């Protein structure tokens, strides 16, 4: 097992889908009209530019220049998400994977390159052939969006697949040799009962994937699903029921040998998603592709969401940035708290003090103590973490730590 701090990640955004799901408010476009090959070529070029420090502010560029020595900004994990990465022709996706592995390995003298490489897959776009090709290219983790084991709710969610199609895709991934598979589920769906949800959990646990994500449905403004619920076409969702379902997940999955290591994430021992853990540890990452976000020393930034504009920028050798946010040490500490508290490990306050200064971290002591009295937060030596009940009320805690 590879331990230690996960200092840097590489995220690649593929903003294309067969069609948009009813609950989705991520940046994604129907794939049909786009020249995906040209997009993938731009992605490869952007990885190269980003890792070599082209167009970054001085502070980031100097870190990258020194990377061969420290490896601080050499990605060790990669994640291709979307959208639906597997909507791409496999040759294009393969090329992106290969380039990412080559480029990260190249800059990381002696540091071992990428050890966890995840690709998100939609059940109806993952064939055995594609799965094998991805495995061969160096992908070692697949994240499959199941969402529900009931076709009725899959229809409400606007998913393009059935439960049986998911099972076929899952088998394809297993037979292609994947031994680290994650399955996404959503609960709190309009009309969903606890029995429905417990069946989803039981069926998924019986498949025994290495990792399961359970998300409470969020009705995002502007989505088709939100409109259906607000107009009364679909029933309202009760927070109390969703809370019951949260605890159902915690108990059924822990029974099945999964540990609840983040608000919405469960893993078999040692199979936590390293790439995502880096986000929650407030680590650095490069976001590649349209609408992708990066966190680098002193800054968070965001690429342009428009595909054509993105391609044009990169082809002309410019960084496709839409927005840069400069981070103060105060802001970094606050981010470290609100991200780190999402996980069962919590936040290591003394490590944080070492990085950003004891003064800044000390300012949180009084607030944390007050929060502890509410029972939402607990201390364990130098670590602060949310209690099991605190996780589902985490906004109450995080609001105080902004």
């Amino acid at each position, binding site marked *: 097992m590879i331990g230690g701090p996960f200092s840097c990640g590489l995220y690649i955004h593929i903003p294309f889908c067969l069609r948009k799901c009813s609950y989705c408010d991520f940046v994604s476009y129907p794939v049909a009209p786009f020249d995906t090959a040209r997009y993938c070529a731009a992605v490869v070029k952007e990885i190269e530019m980003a890792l070599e420090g082209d167009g970054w502010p001085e502070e980031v560029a100097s870190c990258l220049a020194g990377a061969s020595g420290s490896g601080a900004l050499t990605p060790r994990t990669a994640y291709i998400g979307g959208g639906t990465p597997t909507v791409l022709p496999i040759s294009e996706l393969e090329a992106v994977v290969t380039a990412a592995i080559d480029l990260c390995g190249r800059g990381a003298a002696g540091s071992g390159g990428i050890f966890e490489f995840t690709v998100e897959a939609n059940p109806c776009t993952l064939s055995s052939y594609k799965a094998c090709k991805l495995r061969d290219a160096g992908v070692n983790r697949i994240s499959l969006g199941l969402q529900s084991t009931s076709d009725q709710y899959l229809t409400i969610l606007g998913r393009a697949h059935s439960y049986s199609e998911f099972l076929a895709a899952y088998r394809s991934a297993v037979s292609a040799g994947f031994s680290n598979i994650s399955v996404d589920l959503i609960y709190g769906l309009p009309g969903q009962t606890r029995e429905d949800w417990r069946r989803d959990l039981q069926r998924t646990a019986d498949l025994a994937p290495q990792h399961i994500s359970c998300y409470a*449905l969020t009705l995002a403004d502007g989505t088709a699903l939100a409109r259906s619920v607000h107009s009364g076409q679909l029933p309202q969702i009760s927070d109390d029921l969703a*809370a019951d379902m949260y605890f159902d997940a915690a108990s059924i999955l822990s029974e099945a040998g999964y540990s609840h290591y983040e*608000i919405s994430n469960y893993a078999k021992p040692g199979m936590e998603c390293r790439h995502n853990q880096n986000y929650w540890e407030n680590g650095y990452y490069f976001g590649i592709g349209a609408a992708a*976000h990066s966190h680098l020393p002193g800054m*968070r930034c965001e690429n342009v969401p428009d595909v054509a504009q993105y391609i044009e920028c990169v082809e002309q050798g410019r960084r496709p940035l839409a927005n840069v946010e400069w981070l103060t040490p105060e802001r970094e500490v606050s981010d470290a708290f609100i*991200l780190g508290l999402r996980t069962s490990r919590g936040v290591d306050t003394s490590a944080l003090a070492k990085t950003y200064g004891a003064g800044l971290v000390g300012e949180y002591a009084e607030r944390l103590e007050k929060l502890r009295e509410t029972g939402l937060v607990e201390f364990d030596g130098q670590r602060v973490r949310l209690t099991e009940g605190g996780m589902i009320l*985490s*906004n109450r805690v995080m609001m105080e730590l902004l």
Partner: protein
Amino acid sequence: MEGSAIRNFCIIAHIDHGKSTLADRILERTGALSEREMTEQVLDHMDLERERGITIKLKAVRLEYRSSSGSEYVFNLIDTPGHVDFTYEVSRSLAACEGALLVVDATQGIEAQTLANAYMAIEHDLTLIPVINKIDLPSADPQRVKQELEDILGIDPSEALLISAKTGEGVSEVLEAIAERIPSPSGDSRLPTKALIFDSHFDVYRGTIAYIRVVDGAIRRGMKIRMMASGREFEVTEVGVFKPSMETVDSLVAGEVGFVAAGMRDVKDCQVGDTITDAHAPAESPLPGYRKVKPMVFCGLYPSENSDYEALRQALEKLQLNDSALWFVPETSAALGFGFRCGFLGLLHMEVVQERLEREYDLDIVTTAPSVPYQIERTDGQVEEVDNPAKWPNLAHVASIKEPFMRVSVITPKDYVGSVMDVFTDKRGTYKEMQYLNPQRVLITYVVPLSEILLDFFDLIKSRTRGYASVDYEFDSYKESDLVKLDVLLNERPVDALSCIVHRDKAQARGRALVNKLRKTIPRQLFDVPVQAAIGSRVIARETIKAKRKDVLAKCYGGDVTRKRKLLEKQKEGKKRMKQLGSIEVPQDAFMAVLRVDDEE
């Protein structure tokens, strides 16, 4: 100015019958303002007034008019407040006039305030010129309105002028009628000076500017004047007229309308209704009709942020300079901290002040539910007035409690008579009379406790009559009632700012409705919060605000950090606007919940 050429008049009307539009046309036709200068409805010059379509502070304008026969006239148009809360101010404006244009909407006919205003004008012996407005509208029925004027007010239908203030049709005839029908003022400039103050406003440089009608004698610059009610004396620094901008003149003589500045720094120096006289040659007696304005509706105003207390005090002081009817004293609430007990003429007056504080002074304020002044007689014979439920006495030492009752008139289409009477009965009303204005419309009069009117009376009348009824009311008398104090407890602790006074028979229902409303208004906390209504130590209603169980951002990955942070920041903003009562967060509008308990019934 030759007194015989002066015409002092006002325009009276029910809300939205077109008073301000007609005033605009008159200003245009007399050349006081060119059409280009004319912003819509010049006389209502506060934003708030324009938005609500009502006139709160009156104004006076001097106009020059040449009649069709070639005679020159001076018209003094005195605008009157259009809302029932300002009845006293209206009466003082009427007292400054010899005539009134009674404007009635040709599509609506006589409404409650048409009647109230017309009766008041008749009481002041004014010559009424009936003006039927909006005849350009397809649904106009001037014949019916003429009939109503004759049947109800005894006005000769042949006197009515048919106009459209909007198109200007008939406005010339109105101007001619003002010149021909309204008598010139009858005062004598050789008699000792008597001038009626009918309004005032505060000017930072000149102090309080009194709007006056000189009845007898004259007022000149440099003259020493005396306020007959307060006894205060001042030297006149400026005398002038509104054309409509302020223009200085040497003097104002009997019959004229204008303004006086005399270095008056305190609103109390210059009370509406008071009489100004010559300090060296005073009149024997003041003009009739002066009374001290008495607030009838009270509420607590608290700054949301305790640090805004001083800013709130200064804002109230500034508002008071132009609004002598506004009353306030500091008060402290265990729940809300430091604030002010404020008194108003009525509900609308209260709302206007609250809105001005928020809009013009940018203050975020918490308002407690309004209350009325109760007269409490103790067993030892002492009588005190209590306007704050928090100061309710121990009933063991109380001989009697009286509350203010209003005489309320509603004019409604006959189909809604039953519904209107149901509302009155529900509001503890006592039937007085019912009169058919015509076969279709009925005037119903009840005497009702003011505290019940404050609740939701107007909304109920409006909804039960589909907006077809009009309402007017005036103070009737204090009467004894069986009243109790209803306390509210949150998490077992009483919240003083939520207490209210209710009739014993209604306490149970109100208590239940109130806790139910609070359960819906107060967001779920991290623990169960019992909400109780109690009379003394007896709990009469109870609800529980169940603990919040889910408040989470399900997903947060690399792309979401900034976006999720913004969501949390927004949530934190919302929390900041709540009042912290112990460990419970209460939204500001919960304190008004007492008022709106009947919303959902």
